[in-house]
């Protein structure tokens, strides 16, 4: 796949050159959607949204991306090949902040609008940026945790801890900071511990057990991504007995199972489907010259064991069921 994409791209390029010379139309009318990695559920959901928008907006899209999120060079190569083909506009989820800046600037200089989704780049030469506000997500996590503690014990008081999946990752740091600042609204709750799990589910499990050994009267736990959420959930399930409240980021299938089993008390759910959907609409609009807002928050929602069956969450937890209604503002 990794090596195949450029070959595919150059083959299509050759064909498009032939087509152009024959039909005398100018640049191709299509929108490439370039994600961080094609091999994850999250990015597949972005593609699902992009496909729906392609149908609704009547544009042709192309789904591109490296096999692994760590493959920055591959994404730069995909961008360079794409720019050569002069598409209508590009939807890009940049894998790294600074290394992708050059290609984004190059696209903009070539007159191709770039719609960024999910993550930022180190330049402001782009048309629009649609992402989750991770800081707000962390704050909502703090509120959900306090609410759960209050529901269980009658008052929002006690000791809580949080699990960080990886140190030094901007989106995770924002979530943690949002969580810590959100907790300041609840003076009765004290954040006593933080452990880093190296994005390893087993370590998330171990850390949770150790946190609970150290703080036997722990009332709440916040996990800042799906890996930590599942690890913490497995720990609470294994341990049994009186369990603290657990709020976790994302909506991986196993996290939803744990939510249904009342082991996870709340999921902070992002909206990758909307990033893909709105991203392609924005790309089409920008391609036609529409002026767009520079930044769009695609929103985060809190899903709990009591509300996950509601229709508005069904499509968030299982993107295949997603049905969008009219947007009337929030």
């Amino acid at each position, binding site marked *: 796949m990794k090596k195949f994409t450029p070959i595919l791209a150059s083959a299509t390029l050759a064909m498009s050159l032939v087509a152009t010379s024959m039909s005398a139309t100018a640049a191709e009318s299509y929108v490439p959607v370039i994600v961080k990695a094609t091999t994850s*559920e999250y990015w597949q959901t972005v593609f699902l949204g992009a496909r729906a928008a392609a149908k609704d907006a009547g544009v042709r899209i192309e789904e591109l991306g490296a096999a692994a999120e760590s493959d920055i060079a591959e994404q730069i190569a995909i961008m360079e090949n794409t720019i050569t083909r002069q598409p209508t506009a590009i939807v890009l989820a940049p894998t790294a902040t600074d290394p992708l800046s050059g290609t984004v600037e190059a696209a903009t200089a070539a007159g191709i609008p770039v719609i960024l989704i999910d993550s930022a780049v180190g330049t402001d030469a782009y048309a629009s940026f649609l992402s989750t506000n991770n800081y707000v997500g962390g704050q909502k996590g703090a509120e959900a945790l306090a609410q759960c503690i209050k529901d269980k014990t009658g008052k929002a008081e006690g000791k809580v801890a949080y699990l960080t999946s990886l*140190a030094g990752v901007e989106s995770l740091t924002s979530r943690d900071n949002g969580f810590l600042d959100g907790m300041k609204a609840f003076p009765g709750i004290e954040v006593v511990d933080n*452990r880093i799990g190296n994005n*390893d*589910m087993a370590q998330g499990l171990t850390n949770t057990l150790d946190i609970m050994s150290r703080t036997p009267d722990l009332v709440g736990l916040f996990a800042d991504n799906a890996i930590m959420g*599942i690890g913490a959930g497995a720990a609470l399930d*294994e*341990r049994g007995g009186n369990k603290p409240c657990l709020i976790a980021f994302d909506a991986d*299938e*196993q996290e939803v199972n744990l939510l249904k089993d009342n082991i996870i008390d709340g999921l902070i759910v992002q909206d990758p489907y909307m990033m893909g959907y709105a991203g392609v609409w924005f790309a089409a609009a920008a391609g036609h010259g529409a002026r767009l807002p520079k930044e769009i928050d695609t929103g985060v929602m809190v899903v709990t064991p009591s509300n996950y069956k509601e229709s508005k969450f069904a499509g968030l937890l299982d993107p295949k069921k997603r049905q969008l209604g009219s947007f009337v503002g929030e």
Partner: protein
Amino acid sequence: MSVLQTSELNKQGVNVSVIDKLSQRIKQKGVPVETFVVLLTALLWVVLSFASPYFLTEGNVLNIMRQVSISGIIAFGVLFTILIAGIDLSVGSVAALAGVVVAKLLVLGLPIWLAVAGAMGLGIAIGLFNAFAIFRLGIPAFIVTLAGLQAYRGGALLASDGMSVSGLPKAFSAFARGEFLGIPTLFWTMVIIGLILHFVLTKTRTGRYLIAMGSNQESARRVGINISKMTFLAYTLSAALAALAGILLVSRLSVGTPTAAMAYELNAIAAAVVGGASLFGGRGSITGTFIGALLFVTIANGANLLGVDPFWQMVAAGVLIAIVVYIDNVQKRRKSGV
């Protein structure tokens, strides 16, 4: 490290003269590195039981037992490849692949025994292939298993489309969470495997052959040891135990993840080496490897219980490896009279 712990002990009021005598003895006669690591681990347990009121609680000891089981099982397998002067860098990826495969088979509705047998079969096949590439094709073990580290991880990602595999039967998760006579089943599993392998290594001809081969492959061949059989045995055992550990990990987490067991090969090698195994082959033991694995688990557990910065925890583990290997080298130099 040892200096720090000695002073720590002084504070606790432990008899200093014992340590003096001990260090004199070490200076005069030298102790095997295994003994040193056993003492170090014991010391750490004593210090931690004073430093944290939660360390010696029943719950925490059970946690440590569960944690050491999976890393211990992987390390036992890797030890066999180290003994014959080889290495197996692919065990973490094999564990992830076997875990994803067992989860996929279970989700497809296969009975538990069949799903486990399938994943174990895959592990054994990988081990045979590794041994084939090393022995028959003559590719260095380091290269073969480094390639495996990448390829089997890729296989795990492909088999799962890069997503975690959930929806496993509760009966499957029940195994790793269960207890027998108050001891976690995971720990029993590791103890039984450890005892068998210890017996093989110390009491059977196969064990002596493995060690002889690791000490000097050429002379082992000359005295008629079947080098091919020993190579296949070591690498198949390593991959099979990695697969088993991967399956147990899925049982414990109730989900198969392609990114599981990342870098576990390094932990396994570190456990074996700290437990007295020589990377040049011919030396190492199951008990030493177990203590090595236990030492690393204890450091991580202790750091969590004391709230030590996780970055310092990594530094401590690294420093420890360096110290132990240094002491081992000093011993060897003294013995050979350099």
